[in-house]
């Protein structure tokens, strides 16, 4: 066996992933999972409007179901938060449909902020795979 030269830097992560390719497959599955969630969340945000809210409801239901029963147990806290955000917006659909100019409650901008939070969670999970 040839000894490693001390001056050559070793990337432990890459070495580990080379030795254990299963981890790579797991990581790829996770990236795809979060990309799918992210795409649906962006599309839901685009559909926050009086004329397209039904599409938004469907997309948020898809997001909610996707976050249930995954194999990524280490991310359960984050997935729970995304699910909470989806449920919160779904329970306020009346505000998206609302056509009253003087309504005291409706503020779709705050719904967008919440959806941005969910999107950011997805991107951060991808960054920290």
């Amino acid at each position: 066996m040839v000894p490693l030269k001390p001056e050559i830097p070793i990337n432990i992560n890459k070495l580990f992933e080379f030795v254990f390719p299963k981890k790579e497959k797991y990581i790829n599955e996770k990236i795809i999972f979060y990309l799918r969630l992210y795409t649906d969340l962006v599309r839901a945000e685009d559909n926050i409007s009086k004329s397209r809210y039904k599409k938004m409801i469907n997309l948020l239901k898809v997001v909610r179901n996707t976050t249930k029963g995954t194999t990524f147990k280490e991310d359960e806290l984050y997935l729970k938060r995304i699910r909470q955000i989806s449920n919160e917006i779904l329970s306020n659909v009346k505000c998206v449909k609302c056509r009253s100019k003087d309504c005291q409650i409706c503020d779709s901008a705050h719904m967008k902020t919440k959806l941005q939070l969910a999107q950011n969670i997805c991107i951060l999970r991808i960054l920290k795979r």
Partner: protein
Amino acid sequence: MHKWSKYSITSENIGIYEEIFENVTIVDCHTHIGKDKDQHKLSPDSLIKAMNASKVNKAIILPLNDPYNTRDFNEPNDAVWLASKVYKDRLIPFFRLNPHFKWQDEFKLRLGQGFKGVKLHPRSQKFALTFSKAMKIYEACEKNNLVILIHTGFGLEAIADDLLTITKKFPALKLIIGHSGFVDLDNVIKKISKLDNVIFDTSSLRIFDLFDLLKKVDYHKISFGSDIPYYDIDLALEGVIDSAITVGKTPNQIRKILGGNILKWFR
């Protein structure tokens, strides 16, 4: 080590979290208490609980858009004042004004009580950034050395020229750009990011906008903010730290973003 930092350990940034959290004072420059028309609410105790959970030392507190008091915001401003008395080492009080109504008495009262700044929300109070009556508030704040945190997020569009007008007319006014003007981010960065008395607040930015901000703006002009109760403090903090690490900021620079930059204004 923070509860979420373990997810970020890679060969590139191992150890960086320990360095960041060593002797750091974290200041959340965008938090709210009270109740809002849209039914969101947060008590001072709940805010402190959330701050403790995320190791946030101090926070600027702003009143929400109260459903019953949107003329002079007297009651919500009172609630902020009381909270800042109870948690005087933790909370930095800002009061809210509506430029459409008489604000001078409220301004005098809060100035005397020791408030540190004013929150203005052009979308909720339906005014343009350069609305003549709002200009009077900027003038009064500049004269009395009060900081203004102004909402520049959803509900606004091209705002860079207006912000430039305000900063030119009131060069000594200390201005926190709430949400960093993400609706017109490129132009806002180009036009006002080099000015002395401007700080960009990171609250509720998309991660991609946060990357842009961290890459294009001097780190001395960026300050961490969460926008709780609309956003989570721990997730906002995680987002800022990870984005800063990703774009190559050093632990010392990240510590400044987390609190050092904004604290300079309140010493």
